[in-house]
């Protein structure tokens, strides 16, 4: 009885979620101009008055922390401290936002126009908005939206303006080379600055001064609660629609004022922005395949006006439950460690703290995933990806209905249109995504541009663009099926049905793929239990005392689930094969992506695999990280070049294990 209540508590299908309201509806019925000029009076943290940007800069420049670092840097470099101070002023100048209501109003007007042409609706959970409004008044708030598109933060500010909430200041990346990302688009960059964006260099590793200015700038805004701070946990746009492994730098910074007792609490608000069609859809696939992308420039963006003639469906924005850093840290962080050294002296976070921040980051990304709204097309894409040769449309409809049931049982946040029959839903999804699929003769197939003149390699890449675009939709639902799918795969690879063996296998696979998917570090047991529970609940397996047994009707479920991960499995095998077959001495790290790519092309053309994911630089990078982590590779400096050295034994074992030739090692070993 007791275990039953325990289970029902974590039954994902019972998760309560809010309803959505379409904010474009009102825009379609009333004047955009009046909307842009309306009275805007947001509530602020503890009744603070917003701070002028110049005052903010002064506070930062006069802060003890910055002074300390300036003096330190001056001592180290031998420069006069006022020169360093000058440098700090410049850094701040380059970084700081210049939030202006007039610019916001301009955006409110133009975006209203643009959104109405691009999207059918922009739907927001109003209860989330109310929670946010409450949170803003109580504690400093950090907004953490998912990142799938350039327009994510425009959408965010647009919504907050619409609901009369405090406008956020947004951390935006500046690109490795100054000016290559947003700043390059000079005018747009300045516009974004005036709508609250502040710009951070992409890499400033050892630059103490930069770090000091940057962290103090963010912390000052947070401590004083002048505005909610917004940044992307994933660090960059996900080109695959899978959530990316979170970056910790900014999260560390926004938590520090709590650790140091400078604020009572900080609220972290995970926000999930789901697009029915991402504006950058095929652009991403090209990028992943290394097909040169159009340069990001103002004129390039203007050309993108072509986009405006297309229908991009709906956007769903879900404001999650604010998460209190204080309650998360309860019992995990000993705040008194900060009491014995002046707080303005920057210190590296302790291991305990880093672990905590990392766990929190994963938790938040999972929250983002959970609240992503999934459209029927995502289910269809998942099916199509397992039928690359095409599928009978009646069968597709039938399978979609089946998958819908499974997804719901696993707690997916599906947005299924009312009472419409499945067939109709499928056909309207197909027509919205007509660029990716063709329906001909009762068969549904991925679109394939057949060009007579194209070389086999070109044809291959053309097809791959289509496959990877479609895969990005399947990826959206991966998080729902991920754990059961890993279990299904583990049951395949494990030698026996003994629970222990399956668990070892599960842990092994989970470890291999921990750069590929969002898997909270250290949560092996929870993930395994969750997977077991879900598969048991849908009747696919029976969990006995010692064994896990597949039921009769469970077979199709399990094979579908493992089929979902198959491309990744194959992709990793390709990378392993590359290293075991093609690399002898070592490989310059720079060469890695192009080399693996051409190896994969070779494999596909020779028909030894059909896995287009192996061409994706995202998978390649993740596999590289995994191999490094598992000591199959190590980095060494050879003649001033970062070089990858291969441990053939380990690579071979990994390849064989993934190929199901040998059972997974014991988890103890696997963790090494």
């Amino acid at each position, binding site marked *: 009885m007791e275990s039953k209540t325990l289970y029902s508590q974590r039954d994902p299908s019972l998760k309560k979620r809010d309803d959505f309201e379409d904010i474009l509806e009102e825009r379609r019925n009333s004047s955009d101009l009046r909307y842009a000029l309306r009275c805007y009076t947001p509530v602020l943290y503890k009744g603070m008055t917003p701070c002028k940007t110049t005052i903010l800069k002064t506070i930062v420049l006069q802060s003890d922390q910055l002074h300390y670092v300036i003096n330190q840097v001056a001592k180290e470099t031998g420069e006069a401290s006022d020169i360093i101070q000058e440098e700090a002023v410049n850094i701040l100048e380059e970084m700081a936002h210049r939030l202006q209501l007039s610019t916001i109003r301009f955006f409110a007007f133009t975006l209203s126009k643009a959104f109405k042409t691009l999207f059918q609706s922009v739907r927001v959970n109003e209860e989330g908005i109310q929670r946010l409004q409450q949170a803003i008044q109580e504690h400093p708030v950090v907004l953490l939206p998912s990142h799938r598109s350039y327009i994510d933060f425009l959408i965010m500010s647009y919504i907050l303006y619409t609901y009369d909430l405090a406008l956020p200041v947004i951390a935006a990346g500046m690109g490795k080379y100054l000016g290559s990302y947003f700043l390059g688009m000079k005018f747009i960059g300045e516009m974004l600055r005036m709508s609250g964006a502040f710009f951070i260099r992409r890499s400033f590793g050892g630059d103490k001064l930069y770090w000091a200015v940057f962290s103090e700038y963010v912390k000052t805004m947070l401590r004083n609660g002048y505005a909610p701070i917004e940044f992307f946990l994933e660090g960059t746009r996900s080109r695959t629609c899978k959530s990316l492994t979170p970056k910790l730098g900014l999260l560390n910074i926004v938590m520090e004022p709590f650790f*140091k*007792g*400078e604020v*009572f609490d900080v609220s972290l608000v995970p926000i999930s922005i789901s697009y029915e069609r991402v504006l950058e859809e095929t652009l991403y696939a090209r990028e992943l395949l290394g097909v040169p992308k159009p340069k990001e420039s103002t004129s390039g963006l203007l050309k993108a006006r072509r986009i405006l003639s297309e229908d991009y469906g709906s956007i769903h924005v879900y404001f999650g439950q604010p998460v209190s850093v204080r309650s998360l840290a309860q019992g995990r962080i*000993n*705040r*008194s460690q*900060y*009491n014995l050294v*002046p*707080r303005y002296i920057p210190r590296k976070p302790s291991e305990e703290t880093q672990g905590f921040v990392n766990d929190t980051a994963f938790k938040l990304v999972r929250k983002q995933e959970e609240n992503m709204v999934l459209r029927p097309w995502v289910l269809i894409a998942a099916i199509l990806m397992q039928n690359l040769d095409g599928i009978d449309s009646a069968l597709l409809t039938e399978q979609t209905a089946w998958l819908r049931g499974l997804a719901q049982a696993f707690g997916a946040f599906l947005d299924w249109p009312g009472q419409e029959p499945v067939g109709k839903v499928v056909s309207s999804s197909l027509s919205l995504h007509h660029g990716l699929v063709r329906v001909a003769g009762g068969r549904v197939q991925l679109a394939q541009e057949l060009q007579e003149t194209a070389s086999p390699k070109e044809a291959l890449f053309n097809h791959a663009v289509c496959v990877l675009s479609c895969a990005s939709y399947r990826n959206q639902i991966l998080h729902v099926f991920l754990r059961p799918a890993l279990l299904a795969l583990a049951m395949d690879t494990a030698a026996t049905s003994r629970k222990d063996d399956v668990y070892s296998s599960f842990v092994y696979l989970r470890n291999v793929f921990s750069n590929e998917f969002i898997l909270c570090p250290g949560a092996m047991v929870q993930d395994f239990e969750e997977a077991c529970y879900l598969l048991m609940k849908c009747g696919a397996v029976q969990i006995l005392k010692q064994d896990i047994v597949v039921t009769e009707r469970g077979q199709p479920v399990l094979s579908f689930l493992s089929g979902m991960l198959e491309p990744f499995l194959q992709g990793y095998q390709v990378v392993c094969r590359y290293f075991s077959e093609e690399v002898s001495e070592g490989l310059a790290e720079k060469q890695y992506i192009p080399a693996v790519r051409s190896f994969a092309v070779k494999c596909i053309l020779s028909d030894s695999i059909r896995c287009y994911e192996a061409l994706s630089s995202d998978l390649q990078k993740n596999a590289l990280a995994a191999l490094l982590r598992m000591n199959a590779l190590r980095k060494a400096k050879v003649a001033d070049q970062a070089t990858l050295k291969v441990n053939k034994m380990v690579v071979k074992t990994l390849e064989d294990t993934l190929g199901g030739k040998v059972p997974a090692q014991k988890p103890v070993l696997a963790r090494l």
Partner: protein
Amino acid sequence: MASNGNNSERHRIAHQRLRIIAGHLLNEEYRGTTRIFANDCKAKLTDTNPIVSRTVPRKRQEIMKWNGWGYSDSRFLFNKKGQAEFTGKRYRLSGMIMPGLKDWFEGTFGASLLHKTPATTAVNTSMVQPPSLNEDFIQELKTTGVPFSLDPEDRVFRAHGHCLYEIFSLREGKIGRVPDMVVWPNSHNDVMKIVELACQHNVCLIPYGGGTSVSSGLECPPEESRSIVSLDTSQMNRILWIDEKNLTAHIEAGIVGQDLERTLNACGYCTGHEPDSMEFSSLGGWVATRASGMKKNIYGNIEDLVVRVKMVTPRGVIEKSCQGPRTSTGPDIHHFILGSEGTLGVITEVTMKIRPIPEHKKYGSVVFPNFEQGVACLREVARHRCAPASIRLMDNAQFQFGLALKPQVSSIFTSFLDGLKKLYITKFKGFDPHRLCVATLLFEGPRERVLQHEKQVYDIAAKFGGLAAGEDNGQRGYMLTFVIAYLRDLGMDYSVIGESFETSVPWDRVLDLCRNVKERIVKECKERGVQFPPLSTCRVTQTYDTGACVYFYFAFNYRGLSNPIHVYEQVEHAAREEILANGGSLSHHHGVGKLRKQWLKESISGVGIGMLKSVKEFVDPNNIFGNRNLL
């Protein structure tokens, strides 16, 4: 020892001086009364002529409440008209009506005068466990002639301090483990005899001074199976000698603060040690808990005032052999005694610094636009080391509270003036009445210097937007600290419970600590089902070179809670954790006792605990002083 006719002139002068005594403490009408029997001061007296002044009788319950704070005749109550009134004649506020208190009380706590939660009126002696006696000990004690008692009321009175849960239980008539007997030694030698007998017969001794502990220090350990003897030092209250050459006085440790001050004042001196509990707390208690007085900026805290201490331990008497002002003779053994909280022995006599009574004394107050500015000002004052005898900063909630305690004004003119002042501060100066806060000041010293000092402090205050707000507000602020303990009893009559606690914290964390602790209290109350937001307020009460002492008041209405004391304790626990997390100390002056000993190890490290343990082990191997404080 009473005065005789031929020195009536000196008597008169002495009385005049007496009037200066802690003005906030005493009733102005006292001049006419005969309550105080200060002996005529024999200035060149020797140890054969000790000065005695007794206000604390052996039967404490004759003048003091057995289940509340202070004198039986002094209490707050809501009269038939629903107005708050303070009874008795002892205090300036006595007999006055405070028209604002009811609204404040009801508004702050959501309490209602209709919902009374009265206390049990008398000790139910049948509830008191019969004493478990060590007959051999008693037999031998009788031969020494030291008075003792087995009376349940005497024993109950010495079984508690003034922690909230202790008083709350008494009001509900609940009585736990109490001492099995009470002894009243009359001198150091009596104490020697008692300790010797206790060691001989393995009896547990718990020293008792003024009974004002707020750290569960007096609580009898329930697991103690031996006979517990409460050693009440109240009868050891003579000033044995005054050394005017060196400005020291040798005093028996049982003397309570007000008697010490009054008696010394009569001779033209003072110690300047004025903890808020000075009416009742004793010299020995101050030493044993490392007490702090509000005027420490001039006179120092107890550790600065003590020149020599005598303590009787199971191993014998510990004392230093000279009165040199400073020595380099290894670790200062006084620091084993200071803060030992009755775990090592009984402090019997103390040689203490004294000072001539200051020529001039002046109160003052400053209004700041907000607490942040106020703290910045105090920090600046500390940086310049120009803090007046006392400087305290109340937050807004405490300022409002102070207003609620304003007695009914006698003339239309003063109320008109008050209104004008308020108008000036809030309208003209633009202070937000819900953010402003007040610092109260007390200057002491030669007239010239006081005026100069005053100017210096007000100049600094002005830099932080502070406006001088008059002597009256300042004086009322200090008076409040003496009556606030009485107010808790009033609260408890109407289902409001509360407590104060303190800490010390480096300057850079004062604001963060105050904000976080107050907010934590509010949050914890909410989470534990307290229906109405609690009163959660603080003040900065002491400044040091490197930090400040912060004092919190916390109270809430417990209607609807099934176990209010448990909730209270959980919240207090959380508040202490928050203090420690924010860089505050475990205690600035209340001590550790049993209430806070769970945190002592993390405060002073395992090695530190080991050091204390080994001292205890040597000094008191059989745990005769078994109150189990600290360790």
